[in-house]
């Protein structure tokens, strides 16, 4: 999967949880949860969605590695098959 494809999957998953998000306005280098109103249930559903689509299991201990969109893309890019 290319980085571009991965980005599409991540954004589509995010939009399925927070449909009000304007993908173009997201700053990839700023904390995601400061830009999008995601509570812990939304966050868990976001990760569950990524898990379903990419078959990547994200342990709770790794949440801190997924703060920005860029972080998430790097983390998933290293693990996705």
């Amino acid at each position, binding site marked *: 999967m290319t980085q571009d494809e991965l980005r599409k999957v991540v954004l589509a998953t995010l939009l399925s949880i927070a449909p009000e998000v304007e993908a173009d306005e997201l700053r990839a280098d700023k904390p995601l949860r400061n830009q999008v109103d995601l*509570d812990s249930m939304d966050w*868990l559903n976001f990760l569950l969605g990524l898990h379903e689509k990419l078959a990547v299991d994200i342990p709770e201990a790794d949440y801190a590695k997924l703060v920005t969109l860029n972080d998430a893309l790097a983390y998933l890019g290293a693990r996705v098959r």
Partner: protein
Amino acid sequence: MLEFKLPSIGSDMDEGKLLEWKIKPGDRVKKGQVVAIVDTSKAAVDVEIWFDGTVHELLIEPGATIPVGTVLATLLAPGEKAGAPARPAPPAGRRKISPAARKRAEALGIDVDTLAGSGPGGAVTLADVDAAAAQRSSSKPAATSDRQAEMRKAIAAAMSRSKREIPHYYLAEAIAMERAQAWLSEANAGRPITGRLLMAALQLKAVALALQKYPEMNGFFRDSAFQPVAAAHIGVAISMRQGGLIAPAIHDVGEKTLDEVMRDLADLVKRARAGSLKSSEMSDPTITVTNLGEQGVEAVYGVIYPPQVALVGFGRITPRPWVDAAGGLTVAPVLTASLAADHRVSDGHRGALFLAELRDWLQQPEKL
């Protein structure tokens, strides 16, 4: 003959609009089955039936707005034979319908078995099909902006009533969350992402267990008297992404495992946002829990949702200076739990004991 009436779907609802029947005459229904969809000011709700039976007659057409308590349908009890029906019963086999009406119904995707016929011998006519089609197009759920305005009105009515009628008192307790957090991290480390728990599940279970000891926080104030409820049906305040909130219940939280509470919570949030809540979830919360900690506030002092008599609020879990049991100063994650309770039913003394009990449960996460 049994009568199926429109149930109350929350204290701020006195009427609803029938959007759709999920049953037709002759269908066998089971207790708990979703039989109709009714639009309320807050959401389209799946209405469940509370007895077994066989549908005899549907009395209300989709599109109609009816008050709570209206008989929507009649049913035959299990084993009961149909007596003299109010209208000519449709023939057992093929429905009487004019060829033109059948063709039109097929083209419009209308199930002729759900139509009441106005023609000779109960035959369905072209006019009946057209009337049903017209009603169907007017019985779509409210558009988002209407829904928001309606929801705002419903919240305004319920909260104004609450502040007018309920003498609230407020208490708060700072709770050390070190143990609960450590227990949760460890529990989640061994779980796949699909089985992971959130702190909200622990909080809900702790509230339910504390209620067992302080039942005067759990139930309804109706007709100038408190009616306690044994089971903890906890209303969970869920904010809607387009604005407004809804607080449907997770039933029997005290009897459920943490995994079950978590599964129910995830399911409830998902369905609340998708607009497919059940009437029982809307009508019977015995207490409400709200959690605004995720939005960063330290504490929340809520407004009780009548006819309930208490609301528990949770703020953010935040590191704070803390004096431990040995008298030493440390830094600990601290949660502020608050109670808004109805002074007609309980006093601050009991409220304080309730919060202390809640605190104690959160110190023993392994027992939740």
